[in-house]
């Protein structure tokens, strides 16, 4: 981190009536408030002097979450983000200005919130969630996630579920998770081991379009196929030693030109610069207003959980803003065979003529598994290993073999992958 200095909190000024609005919720219970709620100084003291909350992500949702938490009176806020500010963030990440482009999000956001709302302490960490261990996460009362990646959410979820010690109620850290896409979004409350967890609902995610390699290589039909060809096949062929950087406009330019040439060759229309960038970066449209709604929903729930001033969301709020203001609140059920909070093995149907390679593709495609680049073993026998290099080379011939030649029906496969924060056990069921 070198030359980046950490911002310091500004001492609380004399501020009469600062919480005049929020206090209406903390002074007296309402008709729906839990009878155990005792309004007044004790709950305010907990919120404003003792409650420690962690915000994961200082991006579109994170900026909103931090501002909300400061105004609601959470005085000890921590934030983790590994990213630096890009110009395309400025249409919604309102704690950042053009002069901040290139600086770490967590640090700039923390500094801004502390200067706008004096008396608030925001402790930033510019790095990965995986840099921290259980002892770090154990210090918080609540965790709010404003992430844009499935992998990071799975890791955070598995970590918090894994921390639960049945004998220690303090080890249960409620996780509030928000996500948006265009005019749509969702917010949910996860009480590790007691409610449905992130992994339980993995199959609810929109299926990510995966183009088969043979389509990309041989029978392109859509502009996207040409772009994938340029990025997946052409780039590594032409630049075997140079990693593609999707943030580098020169790289996008190269991909755009290659994809355009291929599209022309196949008489396919529609390759544009913007589409090229969208496909290779997997860009999800994002606007300030949707982030505001979802972040506010997350923070309302955090406030309700921290103070018990009203019952908290049980457990899923889904917003669709494309057609009026439509939302749906429901209880998502725990999945018995959830590999994180359930623990049973998952049965996986396999066609008899599938090669190991085809099987690996299926693992990436299946909505409730989504294991990318997995290593697979059965018992102590390694079927395919991604690393180290020698082992990869040694197990590579298995990729072309049929899975039915490698394992028996009902064998249990152990799957590990960098995208999976846990080991997955799959029971093979051969079909036709």
């Amino acid at each position, binding site marked *: 981190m070198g030359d980046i200095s950490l911002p310091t909190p500004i001492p609380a000024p004399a501020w009469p009536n600062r919480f005049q609005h929020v206090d209406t919720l903390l002074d007296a219970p309402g008709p729906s408030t839990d009878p155990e709620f005792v309004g007044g100084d004790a709950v305010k003291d907990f919120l404003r002097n003792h409650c420690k909350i962690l915000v994961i992500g200082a991006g579109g949702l994170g900026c909103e979450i931090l501002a909300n938490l400061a105004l609601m009176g959470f005085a000890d806020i921590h934030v983790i983000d590994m990213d630096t500010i890009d110009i395309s963030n400025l249409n919604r990440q309102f704690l950042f200005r053009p002069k901040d482009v290139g600086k770490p999000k967590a640090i700039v956001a923390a500094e801004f919130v502390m200067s706008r709302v004096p008396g608030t302490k925001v402790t930033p960490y510019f790095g990965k969630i995986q840099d921290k261990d259980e002892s770090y996460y154990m210090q918080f009362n609540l965790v709010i996630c404003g992430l844009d990646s499935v992998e990071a959410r799975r890791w955070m979820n598995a970590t918090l579920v894994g921390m639960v010690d049945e004998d220690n109620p303090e080890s249960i850290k409620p996780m509030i998770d928000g996500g948006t896409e265009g005019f749509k979004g969702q917010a949910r409350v996860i009480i590790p081991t007691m409610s449905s967890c992130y992994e339980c609902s993995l199959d609810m995610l929109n299926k990510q379009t995966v183009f088969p390699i043979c389509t990309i290589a041989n029978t392109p039909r859509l502009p996207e196929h040409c772009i994938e060809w340029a990025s997946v096949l052409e780039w590594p062929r032409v630049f075997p030693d140079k990693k593609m950087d999707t943030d580098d406009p020169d790289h996008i*330019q190269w991909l755009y030109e290659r994809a355009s040439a291929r599209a022309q060759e196949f008489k396919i229309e529609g390759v544009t610069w*913007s589409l090229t960038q969208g496909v290779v970066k997997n860009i999800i449209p994002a606007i300030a207003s949707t982030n505001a709604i979802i972040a506010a*929903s997350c923070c309302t729930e955090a406030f309700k959980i921290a103070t018990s001033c009203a019952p908290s969301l049980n457990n899923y709020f889904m917003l669709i803003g494309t057609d009026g203001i439509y939302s749906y609140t429901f209880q998502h059920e725990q999945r018995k065979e959830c590999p994180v909070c359930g623990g049973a093995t998952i049965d996986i149907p396999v066609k008899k003529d599938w090669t190991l390679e085809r099987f690996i593709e299926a693992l990436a495609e299946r909505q409730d598994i989504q294991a990318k680049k997995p290593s697979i073993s059965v018992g102590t026998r390694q079927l395919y290993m991604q690393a180290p290099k020698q082992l990869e080379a040694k197990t590579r011939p298995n990729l072309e073999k049929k899975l039915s030649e490698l394992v028996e029906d009902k064998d249990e496969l152990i799957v590990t992958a960098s995208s999976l924060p846990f080991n997955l056990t799959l029971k093979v069921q051969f079909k036709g």
Partner: protein
Amino acid sequence: MSQTAGAQSIPEATVTVAPANARPDDKTRRYDRQLRLWASSGQSALESARILVVSGGATSTSTLKNLVLPGIGAFTILDHFPVTYADAGNNFFLHIDGVGKNRAEEGVKHLAELNDSVKGTADIRDVNTLLDSDPDFFTSFTLVIAVNLVPATEDRLAQALRSGASTPREMVPLMIVRTAGLYAMIGTQIGEHTVVDAHAETPPSLRLDSAFPALLEYSRAVDLDALDSTDFGHVPWIVLLVKTLDNWRQTHDGQMPKTYAEKQELKKQLEKMRRRGDEENFDEAVAQAYRMWTPTTVPSETRDLLTDQSVTTLTASSPSIFYFLRALSLFVNQYGFLPLVPTLPDMHTTTSTYVELQNLFRAQAEQETLLFENCLKTTVEEVKGSWDERESLGLGRAEVKEFIRNAAGVRVFKGRKWGSVQPAEIVSALQNDLESGMLPAPAAVYSAFLASADFYGAHGRHPRPTDADNAELLQFATRRLTAGGWEGELPETVTTALGEIARAQGSDIPTTAALVGGMVAQEAIKFITRQYVPIAGTCMVDLIKSTTGTLPF
């Protein structure tokens, strides 16, 4: 409000965004994530918009934040009150250092720094004085948003916007927002609103139940038996479905399958054509089999729209969209369906076959575009006299293609007068909520807001959580609902909502403000861009139950 341009500053709003096939400039990069939703047409509409927000509290600035960031043209905050310590405490766009200064000026200062290309103005006059002296002030905006005003002022503002418009079409839309603790209400007064692109998620019809002649001919020419197994596995599912249906009709006197049994039989015939059983193209065809017997129709919303008076009686001053709709109604009367949109889904086949198929669809769409243009010509000649004016009327070839692509998503909304909701409508909505027995209960929260407004009207202050105030709120609610035909005690959903609204004391909670600000901004963007479908009715937000619900009025 423009600040000195720095190295990364964004060009002025008048600069159009870079075309999608060029390397993006700074402005396009800044707006990239939203341009993927509403494109440059939506962006330029935003950049021409002037928005007035009346009152500068937390919900107001939260709303404006979400409009300044995507780059509206200009905004004004109208507020004559000074910043209090409580204001600085619940509003991220005020600072404790500004206590005592004007709330509009302080809010504008902190909002304008979010985007150099947006012009922000603080107006420190009293809204009521301005309604007396200069009601035209309010009609000079693209959209007016009234937040947490006294109900009487809301009524006057709504009246000023109605009086200032000679036709409903010209009326400036008004959004009326109230918040109280964990509750909020978002209402609208619109005259007429046209959605030019609803961004519906249903893909355009391929009309496989009645394949156009060139597609039918193409499909008939595919001789499945003559194909080797590779080619057989690459016959597009569209062709498989057209062939299967064609064969059926040839052996059934040209009839379509009607009964469930017939449809299943048809599906079986499709399955029987397989050679190995696992051909991907057949998997796709089976999944899409319903398209063989799903009749191509004009969506009911479009059909209703075409018989609307605004379409049947055009005037010389009608906007271009109504010329298109009138032409569409002629087209539909003559041909029975909407002009073909040549968007093919991806399918398992070879590149050359896919391109051939795509060309067939494009050629057909081109033909239908010409037929549609004939209808448009007739329309223009009926109203205007000369087809030569088409370009200047915004009815050029490019616009025609754009309209055809979005035709199924065009909507025209007629709003109603603010304050015209009848007690019986509220009772009916309340009964609906109770009968469905499900979350949410928007009519109960709505009733609580009305009772709270009645209380404010009587006492000049918000109700508090005391027995006396609760009893009075209950009386106000009972009076309103009884007038609408409610008999007996009020349901628990209503008494709970009354209790919560008393507890709230008219407070503007930062998270409620942020959530409502997001929703109001989404709707504002939809009104301004005429893309996506805005709210029709009143949205009730209940963050105690973590729900929202929309009332039909």
